[in-house]
C-alpha cells in the first residue's frame, strides 16, 4: 500500500475549482462534440433505423449527463472548502449554486434540443416519444429545476 498526497498545487485561493471550470473557453463546444461523437458511433451500428439511433442517443445522453451532473457528489479531488461540497452534486456546485446562469441555461437547452431532434427523426412515433420524453423530464429537466436544488427524494444519494 502506498502513501501518496496529491499536490492540489501551490496554495490556492479558490476553495473548489469544480465550480468554475465550466466557464472556460470552448467547453460548450466540447460538450456538443461529445454528443455528436456518441451519435455517430450509434449511427454506425448497421441494423438499427435512424429513429432508433436518435432515440438511443437521447437516452444515452440523458443517462450519462444524469450520472455526471446529478449523481456523483463532491469533487474528484480534495477541495479546500473543508467538505462543504461533499454532499452537493455537480449541478449544485456549478457557479456556486447561483441559479439561471448561462451555463445552466445551456445545459438545460441541449437535452431539449436532442429530444426534439429525436422526436423528429423517429417521425413522432408514440413509443419513441414516450421513452424520450420520460427520460428527458425525469433525468434531465427535473433535477435541474431550482425547486429541486439539494432535494434528495426518499433519501436516495443523500450522503
Amino acid at each position, binding site marked *: 500500500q502506498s502513501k501518496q498526497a496529491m499536490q*492540489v*498545487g*501551490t496554495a490556492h485561493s479558490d476553495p473548489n475549482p469544480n465550480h468554475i471550470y465550466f466557464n472556460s473557453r*470552448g467547453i460548450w463546444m466540447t460538450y456538443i462534440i461529445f454528443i455528436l461523437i456518441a451519435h455517430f458511433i450509434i449511427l454506425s451500428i448497421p441494423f438499427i433505423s435512424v429513429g432508433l439511433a436518435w432515440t438511443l442517443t437521447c437516452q444515452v445522453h440523458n443517462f450519462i449527463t444524469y450520472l455526471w451532473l446529478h449523481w456523483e457528489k463532491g469533487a474528484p479531488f480534495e477541495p479546500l472548502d473543508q467538505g462543504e461540497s461533499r454532499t452537493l452534486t455537480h449541478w449544485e456546485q456549478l457557479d456556486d449554486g447561483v441559479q439561471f446562469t448561462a451555463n445552466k441555461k445551456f445545459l438545460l437547452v441541449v437535452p431539449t434540443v436532442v429530444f426534439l431532434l429525436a422526436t423528429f427523426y423517429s417521425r413522432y412515433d408514440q413509443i419513441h416519444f414516450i421513452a424520450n420524453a420520460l427520460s428527458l423530464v425525469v433525468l434531465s429537466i427535473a433535477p435541474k429545476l431550482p425547486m429541486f436544488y439539494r432535494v434528495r427524494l426518499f433519501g436516495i444519494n443523500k450522503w
Partner: protein
Amino acid sequence: MSVEHEEQFEPTPYVVAIITYIGYVMLAVFGHMRDFLRNHGFEKNLIATEPARTKDFVPLYQNFESFYTRNLYRRIRDCWNRPIRTCPGAEFELIDRKSPDHGWSFEYPGTHTRAINFGSYNYLGFAETDGPCADAAAAATETFGCGVGSPRAEAGNLDLHTRLEATVAEFVGAEDAIIFPMGFATNALNMPALIGKGCCVLSDELNHSSLVLGARLTGAKIKVFRHNDIADVEAKLRDAIVYGQDRTRRPFKKILIVVEGVYSMEGSVTRLPELIALKKKYKAYLYLDEAHSIGAMGPHGRGVVDYFGCDPRDVDVLMGTFTKSFGGAGGYIAGSQHLVALLRQRSHSGLYGASLPAPVAAQVVTAFQMLMGRAGPPGEGARRLKQLEVNTQYFRASLHRLGVIVYGHRTSPVVPVMIFMPGKIAAFGRETLKRGLGTVVVGYPATPIIESRARFCLSAAHSLDIIDRSVQIIDEVTSLLLMKYSRRPPPAWTAGITREWAEAQLKLVDQQRRPHGAANGGPVPRRPVECRGDPPDKVADENDAAVKDNLAAVAAAS
C-alpha cells in the same frame, strides 16, 4: 513602457482547449472503468482501504475525493516530490526513482541525476553551502544553538532578531519591522491583529491562500476583485464606502486592499502606482505581500515599490518573506512605528509561536548585508541583482523567440510556460529531466483547467551558459511535444535582448564599483516626485555621481 505592454497572457488556442477537455474526459472515463474493475475484484486493488471492522461506519473520506489522485496524479507522480541530495543551487542532484507498477510504489536503483535547477525559489542564489551567509549561520549555531525554545515575548528574543528587524526596515525603507518564523503565518496570523469585524478586505482573486486564510480569520467582509483590474477595485471601493456594511449600512471601520507584488503562478506584477493613487483618494489602507518580489525586482532589489519608484511610506503594510530571495525562512512586516508596535503586542504568531532560529536569522541578516554591500566581496549584491535581472530578461526573450506561450511580466523571475494538455504535463516533466533540466509542472486543479504550465524560477546562481543550455533543451522538448502554440510575434521589448546584450550588462556591473550606489552601502536615491507608472529603467537620479559614471560608461561602450 507601461506595465501592460510588458506583460502578456496569450489566451489558450480554441482547438487546443477542446483537445485538452477531451483528454481530461478520457482520463475520467478510464478512471471510472479501472475503479470499477478494482472495486469488484477484477484487478489487484492497491488503494488504501479501511479495515474490515470499520466497514459499516460512516466513511472517513469519500472514495470520489481521491479519484483524481488515484487515476491521474498517481500515474505521473514521478514528476513531483523528487528527492534531492545536494543543495538546491543552480544545479542539483536528484535521487533516481523507478516505478515498476505505474506509480503505486517506487524503487531506488541507487543512481543519481545531475540536473539544472529551475524549481527552487532561489532568486538571488543564496541557497549555497559556503560563503559569508553559511559562515554566519554556523557561527550563530555555535553561539545560540539551533533552536530558540520560546516565543519572542517570553525568552526567545535574541539580539540577532533585533538586528534583523533593523536591517529589514532599512532595506525596505520603512520605519520599523517585525519578523516571524513562518511566511505563511506572517500573513494568516497578523491580519486578524490589524483588522476585525466591521472592516472590509478587498482581495485580488489570485491571492495566495495565506492571504485568503488571514482575511477569513479576521471576520471582516471580503470582496474579491478581478486580477489586476483597477477599475474593478475602484468600483468595489466605491460600493464599500457608499453602501457600508451589509444590512446595517454602517460605514466600514477600515478598508484594506490586499495585493501581492508578483503573483507566482502567473508571473504578473501588481499595478502599484494606481493602487496607491486609489487608496489615497478613498482613504483605504494597502497591504502589499512581496513574497516573490522582495530582493528580486527593482534596480536595487527592494521589490515592486523600488521597481515603480514609489515611496515605501505610501504602502501601509509591507510584508515579505525570507524564503525566496534570501535563502532562509520566515517573514516580516514593515511599516510605521505605530503599526509594528501594535503587532508586537497583538500578533498571534509573535506571541504564541517560537521565534526564528538563530542560524536562519544569521543567514538572512548576512544576505541583506550582502545586498546592501556591507558584507561579502565588494559589489556582490549589485552583481547578484544584475545577474537575476539579466537572466530573467534573457531567458524570457529566448523563450518568446522559440514560439512557446510564456505568461507574465518582463522582469518577473517566475516564468510560466504553457503546456495545456494533461498528457503533455508528464511528458514535459520527464523529457526535460532526461535531458538534465529539473522543472516544476502544474496542472488542474492548481491551475485553471486549460492552463496547465511548467513554471521556471530564475536565479542569480544561473550563468548565461546554463540559460543557453536550458533554452536549447526546452526547444528540443517543445518541438518533440508540439508545444509551440504561440501565434503572436515575440513582443517588442525582446528586440535587443541577445547573449551579447546580456554579457555587456554583466560586464557593466563588474567594471565599475559604484562608490555611492545603494548596493555599496549608500542610500537608495529617492525620487522626490510622485511615483509614475513607468518603470525607472531609463530614469536615473541625476544627482547621483555614481549613476552619472554609469551612464558615461554605457555611452562609451555603445
